[in-house]
């Protein structure tokens, strides 16, 4: 029998694929048989070359698009690229995000707007562009990386990030209701503390020491790895996850239960 979470023949867009959760999802989806359209942002300093090499070795066809999810034209073009190269779009994962520390009283309007533009409006742009081809096909999976921050817990000096991540969940629920009749599911995954370049950032996030402290304190005795989130995406993108929609899947080692 074939793998229950098989993605053979599926076409997936993954934004923010050069590091962390996006990169792990690309690698996992490649092994599961998907064709990939990956985005990176050169200015971020992450090199997508290794990801492309790994997914190619796994046998996946891959297209890389350098883009900033703050550009509506670029995101629309991204969906066009997927359709042109692979003829369809089955899965769109809005994963690209930023987290920049900013105490509320000192938060400039540009700080707030920039975070919202990437972390929330970026999701909206990808979802909006994906709906037309998915509706025409009568099926599709829209997925977004939210966070336990904003949805289940606070994060000091990250109110803009929290607002954006909570906004994703509101959008996911409403959109699930709207596009469900067209056979499209819409879900969010809420990672807890995951060992990614973003979380390892000593200035804007926990850093190595903070990650290790979390691993000691939370119910499950480790922090998450990017592949834990990639696996959640694989389930939600596969046939096995076909009746899950409007849901926020929490992947946090039980951490927010005790808060």
């Amino acid at each position: 029998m074939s793998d229950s979470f098989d993605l053979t023949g599926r076409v997936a867009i993954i934004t923010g694929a050069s590091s962390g959760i996006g990169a792990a999802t690309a690698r996992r989806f490649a092994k599961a048989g998907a064709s990939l359209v990956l985005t990176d942002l050169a200015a971020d300093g992450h090199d997508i070359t290794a990801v492309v090499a790994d997914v190619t070795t796994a046998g996946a066809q891959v297209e890389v698009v350098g883009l900033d999810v703050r550009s509506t034209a670029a995101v629309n073009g991204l969906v066009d690229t997927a359709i042109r190269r692979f003829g369809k779009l089955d899965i769109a994962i809005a994963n690209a995000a930023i987290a920049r520390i900013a105490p509320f009283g000192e938060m400039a309007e540009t700080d707030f707007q920039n975070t919202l533009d990437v972390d929330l409006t970026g999701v909206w742009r990808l979802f909006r562009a994906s709906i037309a081809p998915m509706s025409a096909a009568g099926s599709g999976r829209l997925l977004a990386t939210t966070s336990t921050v904003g949805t289940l817990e606070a994060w000091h000096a990250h109110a803009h990030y929290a607002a954006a991540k909570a906004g994703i969940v509101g959008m996911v629920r409403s959109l699930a209701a709207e596009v469900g009749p067209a056979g499209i599911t819409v879900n969010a995954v809420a990672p807890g503390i995951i060992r990614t370049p973003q979380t390892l950032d000593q200035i804007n996030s926990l850093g190595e020491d903070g990650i290790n402290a979390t691993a000691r304190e939370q119910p499950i005795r480790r922090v998450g790895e990017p592949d834990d989130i990639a696996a959640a995406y694989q389930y939600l993108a596969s046939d096995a996850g076909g009746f899950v929609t409007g849901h926020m899947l929490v992947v946090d080692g039980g951490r927010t239960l005790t808060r």
Partner: protein
Amino acid sequence: MKRLQGRTAVVTGAAAGLGRAIARRFAAEGATVVACDINSLLEPGSDGTISTVDLIRAEGGQIVPVIADVTNTADVDRILAAALDDNGRVDVLVNNAGKFGGSSLLDVSDDEWNFYLTLNLTSVFRMCRSFVAAMLEQAEIEGVRGRIINMGSQLGLTAPPGALAYAATKAGVIHMTRQIAVDYARSGIIANAIAPGRIITGDHPGEHEYLERGEIDVATRFSLARTPFSRLGRPDDIAGAALYLASDDSTFVSGAVLSVDGGWTAY
């Protein structure tokens, strides 16, 4: 790649509906399935053709049938013994046995209340207590000694009218699952709940007519109106969720409530 190769999984309420689909999926993914039900495990299934035991064997799966009543403490011990007898450990427990029905507060007799509490909640408590104790004695695989998957319901999260006792038991199951997750995570136990929406098994009133002839009764009409996705649920949708929560793909997921409801609770 089989995701449960070499694992032993107990599934209660495996004769029909969700439990049958879960048992079948787990067996197809390589698990030895200890399948429990009160009496009909060996009888023809809800599709009218073949029992769960014969179905899984015909598909080449490993199944150990146990005729047992989860409300009976001696039977709980028997299920555990049967599971451990297979290869000395039990990796997954799916508490699926339960019954839907009931009425609003003023129509709930003590007997009705006690019936649902005993079957849907107390039995899950006893099964978890016995199995977690046994799981704590066994070695870790991928950092996990054992997994509990409890069948909640969207009725444990939302409150459509008229099923007071049932809804209370499912809310209880969901929160008990969270509490087990927190209390035993450090010991390598993972516990999660599934909250199914309207799943058409063919076993409830009106479902056979809907599946066979597309006839829509009042309950089905309500479900269709409340489910934004383009179809209602199938037992295999729940089997997919159970597989994710039973597999090594979800070792960082605990205390979660996975809604599989076509958007009912989001809508």
